[in-house]
């Protein structure tokens, strides 16, 4: 094996770990920022690590059937796999991962796969709250996938590529970022992104006051730890994906962290100050303005 293969294997190991560390740290920072808005100090930034370690150390003795065990595993598989197909850093053999032509389309499926896995797992617990949460999650997904897909389609048509790496390549220089090249697609995508990140007003899936945290209500201990791990990685993956597509990617880790963090603040800050929609309101929302923007983006490209 040559050095690039070794590098790739190393990348496979480092990437998820980085994603996990960054994702969890982001989670901690979000908790501190939220706390500050709420006039308090909040937990230490490392808090989410302790939470996850504690969850892993908990005994788990709930058994609701095979799918319940597989659900979180599906989720983490999906998020890690997604991550493997997203180039983390531009032109870096270590961080490029498995970018290939058509990976955008692949990712679109891969990202849904995790949710479906979760849905199946949660569905088997027999908890009605889980069932409703799953239904809500899937409905919401149907909602935000429409503008998201429209935006990506617009971009794919515009640049005639289905590869993230190539998209990153065309965004050389600040003014060439896709956010400026195709603003309508960006608007559609970022609104869908709000839904994707499950922050208010689109946190219908987990809504504790309504359905007691929805799909996760029967998952505790190691399952929840797995779900949180996968969530952290997935958050990072999504952030990197958006940075890659719209913000020109990043050449080094610092840039990446700055860009992803700023991007992350959009749903976070929205979430802090807003209540949540009802599910049908959320779906209506996605099918209204974001979809319109997506269609406009396509129309502009096509015409």
């Amino acid at each position, binding site marked *: 094996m040559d050095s690039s293969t070794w590098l790739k294997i190393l990348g496979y190991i480092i990437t998820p770990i980085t994603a996990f560390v960054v994702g969890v740290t982001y989670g901690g920072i979000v908790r501190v920022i*939220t706390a500050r*808005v*709420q*006039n*308090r100090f909040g937990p230490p930034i490392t808090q989410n690590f302790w939470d996850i370690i504690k969850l892993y150390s908990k005994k788990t003795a709930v058994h609701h059937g095979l799918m319940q065990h597989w659900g979180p595993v599906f989720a983490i598989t999906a998020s890690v796999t997604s991550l493997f197909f997203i180039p983390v850093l531009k032109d870096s053999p270590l961080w490029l991962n498995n970018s290939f032509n058509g990976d955008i389309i692949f990712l679109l499926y891969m990202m849904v796969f995790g949710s479906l896995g979760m849905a199946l797992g949660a569905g088997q617990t027999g908890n*009605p*709250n889980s*069932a*409703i949460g799953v239904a809500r999650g899937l409905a919401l997904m149907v909602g935000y996938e429409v503008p998201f897909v429209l935006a990506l389609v617009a971009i794919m048509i515009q640049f005639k590529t289905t590869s993230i790496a190539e998209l990153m390549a065309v965004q050389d220089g600040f003014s060439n970022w896709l956010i400026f090249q195709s603003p309508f697609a960006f608007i559609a995508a970022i609104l869908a992104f709000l839904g994707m990140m499950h922050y*208010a*007003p689109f*946190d*219908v899936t987990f*809504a*504790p*006051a*309504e*359905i*007691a*945290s929805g799909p996760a209500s029967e998952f505790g201990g190691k399952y929840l730890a797995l779900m949180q791990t996968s969530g952290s990685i997935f958050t990072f993956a999504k952030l990197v994906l958006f940075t890659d597509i719209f913000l020109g990617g990043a050449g080094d880790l610092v840039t990446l962290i700055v860009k992803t963090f700023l991007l992350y603040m959009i749903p976070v800050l929205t979430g*802090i*100050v*807003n*209540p*949540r*929609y*009802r*599910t*049908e*309101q959320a779906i209506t929302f996605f099918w209204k303005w974001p979809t319109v923007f997506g269609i406009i983006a396509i129309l502009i490209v096509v015409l």
Partner: protein
Amino acid sequence: MREKETTIYLGPQHPGITGNMMVKLKVTGDTIVSAETHVGYLHRAFEKLMEARTWLQCFPIVCRICVPEPDPNEENLSRVIEEIEGREVPERAKYIRVLVLELSRLATYLLWMGGQSGSMGLYTMPQWTVGDRDYILDLFEQLTGGRVYHMYIWPGGVRRDLPEGFGDKVLKVMDYLEKRLKDYDDLLFNNALFYKRAKGVGVIDKAKAQEWGVVGAPLRGCGIKHDVRIDEPYEVYDKLNFIVPTYEGGDVWARAMVRRQEFEQSISIVRQVIENMPGGDFYNKIPNPLNWRVPPGDAYVKTESARGEFGYYAVSDGSLKPRRVHARGPAYVHGVSLLERILQGANIADVSFIMNSLGTCPPEIER
């Protein structure tokens, strides 16, 4: 096509439930077909216990009847005893009582704002309001010696006089709350999403409202102007200037707006009370509590609590102990029959939302 009907038990362990109760929901999809309230999780048999205690010993008990807002209970029991006994209350005590009642109303509304926003996922609001409520609790601590349970109002007046410089402290907190109310407006009351969530949800039919026993802010949210403070003025409410806001619509939004305005009114009342506080006695002493008999008789008194009309019916048989003290909180009707009614056809996402807007407080339902 008819969807399958599922039964959902909301509570008693559920983050969205106010207090400790359970709502059994039959839903198809997201729509509630029928709702059934189950209470009794907090039943402590207060009324039974009171029959075994002397009149004065009832006071530590009654404030536990409604946990978020204990003062109307003390006020009611004091007033019901005073009415049976014919005991006079000094003017200063009356003013202090109004001060306590209004402060407790403010505290309750702050808690309600938190609950109302928390039930729709706006978690910043409870962090603010519950935190700010603490300043009122600090005032209570200064005044009564207790944060939550004050045991301060009792027959003949109040237990202790205002501490030194208390008026200024109250005014300071009022200024602070008024400033904060702008923040609350920005975050909650002017929030488009709140409007979207609240408008047209949990509607009480104006024509049916009286008959269904709706009281307090929900009634005024139907556009019907009734408030015990003006209907049957107690203490010194007839000497104070305040308006009773009403809103049309009967939905969560209207109730929220009514409460928001009452919040301002309460601040104004507190200021007036501090300004007009008369001197003199604060307490018309009862006889030695070990030998305190209340002459035979019965009376029904009511107080406007933050959640509505709070009534007490008490019967004395002339002995040391009450024959019967019966508390009727607004939640007794709001939390059971009214909630069951207006939940029909509502979205499952709105259960906790509506519950909060009605001010459901299970401990006062079952006592």
